[in-house]
């Protein structure tokens, strides 16, 4: 689809970027460490929905409560304390985290609030032990200039990350508490993007800016994007957990496709004169007493019932594709799973199949008095769950009569999305009464403004200007996580800045591509190398080979020695050069001074990185001149 097509559809996209900060947890002194060893302790809890400050029960909270699962929290006593376990009130806010958030806000040209209030955002899916996520609105009305133009940043919040979901069974959801409480900055753009491609570019730009602070966490899962998407006549969807920037445009394209298809379903239902679906469920176990469907047979054997519901005038629509490989029936199944805890649903648009015969389908249709215009949905599970599942299916089918329901959806790896919960309203916020309001003084902001980090683009032009780096190398190093290391090395040692930058940004990268463990190379090793070079004890050509050895576990000193890479003395170079000249009389005879280039290659190869190219060049030239003069 062309970009103006999206504009015509009224596409609106906004981003929420969540970035973990590199400091201890937001409301306690636990380190922000993720664990991959087995948890020594499990704690089982439940949550109950509560009233929000404005007195209405929030529908997202209600939805989770109906699901009614327990939570098993995985606890590591050495890195998780009673605060994460909701057994101790939160401590005062981590001031370092607040400083980082304010710094980010200022970098995004936003206006910090005068007084920050910690809010409780009710989330009762268990990912927060207390049943709410603590969040603080830190600044408003920001913007960022990108190559795509100015992007508005209406709000910047500081909040605690949620626990990690590790698994789920019929009764309990497993959460690991290591991630709970890690400080996050949430940066929300306006719903201003009207094509699927700009958002990823803006996200990349903001991500680079965040890294410029040097105070954010890096690695998988430390930055996550939520995407808000709607089209005209559709509804806002909040799509959670897109970790790959490359996936953003696909997610948007496919969501647009889904909303268009849902609107087509609505129009078709209207045309067919479909009325509200009723919750009349019929038990049809007998029809399947001799079924070839293993799923149903096993379920019945385990004491399940088979419950069916009629969706009047839905024939053909349940099987309609919304996204590649996902049909309207898949959406119904999402709901059935979420609210009924069932494994899935069957619907007549896909039958006969899965071992269910045409005869069974026609018996089913007549049992439930379905006309050929109707679709039938059924589930095989224990009574309570089957009923809850079909009830959710009917609710979702009725939403289809109206169009697109507002939902929070989870991004799948292929760019499709699935239902998580209804979109929460504003009512789920109330004040965190355990923490007093935090005034943000002019003083604090003034001090902060004085030491704002340089932005990547400012760094880039300075590097070109002051260090003589090429535009490309300056760009790369200005966005690099090693930018501070670069400047430190350049200032400390008398070496070519371009050499330092290319060592960090090119040599290390190509060594990593070779499969070497470059993370084993400590900063101190680079210090040592550049110290050798600045003193003329090492030729720059030796750097890759030394780093290769260091990555394998050697120290710089040992690598230099073992490789015989100490730089040659001038006398040694001279000896090498005259040797090269002597052993290639033919070349010199033929080419005269033009033999310099091939001879240079031969000499450098023999020097194996131990000689400074400049010196070799100089001496060779002199030697050739001498020879030429002699002749």
């Amino acid at each position, binding site marked *: 689809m062309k970009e103006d097509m999206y504009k015509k559809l009224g596409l609106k996209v906004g981003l929420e970027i969540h970035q973990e900060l590199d400091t201890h947890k937001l409301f306690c002194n636990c380190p922000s460490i993720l664990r991959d060893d087995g948890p020594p302790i499990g*704690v089982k*809890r*439940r949550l109950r929905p509560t009233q929000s400050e404005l*007195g209405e029960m929030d529908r997202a909270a209600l939805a989770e409560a109906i699901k009614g699962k327990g939570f098993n929290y995985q606890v590591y006593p050495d890195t998780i304390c009673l605060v994460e376990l909701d057994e101790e009130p939160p401590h005062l806010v981590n001031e370092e985290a607040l400083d980082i958030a304010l710094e980010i806000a200022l970098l995004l040209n936003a206006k910090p*609030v005068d007084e920050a209030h910690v809010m409780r955002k009710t989330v009762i899916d268990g990912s927060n032990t207390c049943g709410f996520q603590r969040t603080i*609105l830190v600044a408003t009305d920001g913007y960022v200039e990108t190559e795509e133009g100015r992007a508005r940043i209406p709000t910047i919040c500081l909040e605690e990350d949620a626990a990690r979901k590790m698994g789920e069974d019929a009764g309990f959801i497993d959460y690991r508490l290591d991630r709970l409480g890690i400080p996050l900055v949430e940066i929300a753009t306006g719903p201003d993007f009207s094509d699927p491609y700009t958002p990823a570019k803006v996200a990349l730009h903001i991500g680079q800016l965040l890294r410029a602070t040097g105070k954010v966490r890096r690695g998988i899962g430390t930055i996550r994007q939520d995407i808000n998407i709607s089209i005209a006549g559709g509804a806002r969807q909040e799509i959670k957990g897109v970790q790959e920037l490359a996936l953003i445009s696909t997610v948007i394209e496919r969501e647009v496709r889904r909303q268009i298809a849902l609107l087509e379903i609505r129009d078709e239902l209207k045309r067919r004169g479909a009325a509200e679906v009723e919750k009349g469920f019929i038990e049809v176990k007998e029809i399947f007493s001799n079924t070839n469907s293993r799923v149903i047979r096993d379920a019945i054997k385990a004491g399940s019932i088979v419950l069916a519901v009629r969706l009047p005038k839905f024939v053909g629509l349940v099987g309609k594709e919304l996204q590649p490989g996902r049909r309207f029936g898949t959406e119904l199944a999402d709901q059935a799973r979420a609210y009924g805890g069932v494994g899935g649903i069957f619907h007549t648009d896909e039958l006969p199949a899965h071992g269910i015969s045409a005869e069974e389908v026609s018996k089913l249709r007549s049992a439930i008095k379905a006309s050929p215009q109707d679709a039938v949905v059924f589930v095989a599970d224990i009574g309570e769950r089957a009923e809850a599942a079909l009830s959710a299916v009917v609710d979702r089918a009725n939403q289809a009569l109206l169009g697109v329901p507002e939902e929070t959806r989870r991004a799948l790896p292929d760019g499709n999305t699935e239902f998580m919960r209804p979109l929460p309203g504003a009512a789920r916020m109330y004040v965190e*009464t355990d923490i007093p309001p935090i005034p943000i003084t002019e003083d604090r902001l003034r001090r902060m403004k004085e030491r704002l980090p340089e932005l990547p683009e400012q760094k880039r032009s300075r590097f070109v200007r002051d260090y003589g780096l090429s535009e490309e190398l300056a760009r790369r190093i200005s966005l690099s996580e090693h930018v501070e290391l670069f400047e430190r090395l350049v200032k400390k040692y008398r070496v070519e800045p371009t050499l330092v930058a290319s060592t960090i940004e090119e040599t290390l990268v190509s060594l990593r591509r070779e499969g070497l463990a470059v993370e084993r190379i400590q900063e101190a090793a680079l210090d040592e190398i550049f110290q050798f070079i600045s003193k003329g004890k090492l030729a720059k050509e030796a750097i890759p080979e030394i780093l290769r050895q260091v990555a394998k576990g050697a120290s710089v000193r040992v690598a230099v020695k073992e490789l015989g890479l100490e730089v040659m003395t001038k006398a040694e170079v001279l000896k090498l050069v005259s040797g090269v000249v002597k052993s290639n009389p033919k070349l010199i005879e033929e080419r005269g001074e033009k033999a310099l280039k091939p001879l240079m290659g031969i000499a450098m190869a023999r020097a194996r990185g131990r000689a400074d190219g400049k010196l070799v060049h100089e001496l060779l030239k002199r030697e050739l001149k001498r020879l030429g003069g002699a002749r």
Partner: protein
Amino acid sequence: MYRGKALKLLKSLSIEVGDRVKIEKAGRVYEGILMPRTELGDPNHFVVKLASGYNVGIRISKGVKISKVEGGKMPRLGLPPLEIKRDPAKPDVTIMGTGGTVACRVDYRTGAVYPAFTAQEIYSAVPELANLANIKVVEVCNVFSENMTPQLWVRIGRAIARELNAGADGVVVAHGTDTMGYTAAALSFMLKDLFRPVVLVGSQRSSDRPSSDAALNLIGAVAVAGKSDIAEVCVVMHGSTEDDFCLIHRGTKVRKCHTSRRDTFQTINDIPLGMVRGTELKLFREDYNRRKPKGRVKVEGKFEPRVALLKVTPGMPSSVIRGVLKAGDKGIVLEGTGLGHVPESLFDGIKLAVSRGVPVVMTSQCLWGRVDMKVYSTGRDLLRLGVIPGGDMLPEVAWAKLMWSLGKTKDLEEVSELMQENLAGEITPRSRPDVFLKPTFALTP
């Protein structure tokens, strides 16, 4: 609420809390509902709840413009009262509100959690109770549990007797957790001929949050009050950090042991009476007072309020006791070291107290174990000075018991006898080997 120049500004524009307002300041525009201001915060900020749900504070300084967009309602936290029909097949349980975190809401005066839900609202918040019992709600008082007094104990005791004598099958007392143990002990001595359960319950996580322990505790308490045959004063609270079961603690052996954990209440020097999982009861022992179909509770509600509980410290001087006596205290409970010892520097003070007819009772700051004052010479000296050994009574329980005993008699001999007699399960005859703290951390690396 707002005060000072903020209030003046609001009044002049006839803007009230709950109105939708627009505040402009230095290029920023905030639009939302004007929220109440905590009085403990400075008076120089407006608090606005934005459409996103966030609250922000806006400093009132030059150039701030506030205007009313539209009138609104004062935000309320109230729960709709739940009407229930009496089911004669179910027990009648009276829930008595006293304040505390089993019943609380956000308070804008302090910005903190405050005890202010009525007990009726608690019931509305836990509709499961409807399947369990016919609930009646009485509010006896509304104080933080740290502000509980012996006078209020008596008021609560009388209210309990009234309910039980009028036919309630059990009473649940919703109480703040800080001094719940003290009240439980006082009620245990005060309520004579108790023939039905009296259950104290509270919560460690306020009931306004989804993770509150209030509901499980309350359901457990109502189950014990309505279904159990324990005709004693007991405390029902979370038995572990999980939302799994509650323990039923005897009112005279229970203590709040942790500042914030859900399983803060522990039975000390004994095993609990039993447990309740959901509404299923499981009792651990036989030796408790049984429910009777008929009876009449008497309230022996005279307490001597002037009793001191002193924690003994190394080198503690006798002037501490002299000060207490000078203040007019009529009894002293010592929380001695180890088996029940004090430094010699305290001997004079103790002598003085006993000579003035002020009983001195010894308990141990170890909490676990019983005092034994015949093992070391100091203990023997203290016995000779007339110190009354408190067995394995908890110091707070001994304190409440001494207040109650002094309400009955001033005679030192009689007080000594009462203090050493097991009246309500406060002194165990034998020390079980399985009731001392067990560490839960990994003992082997």
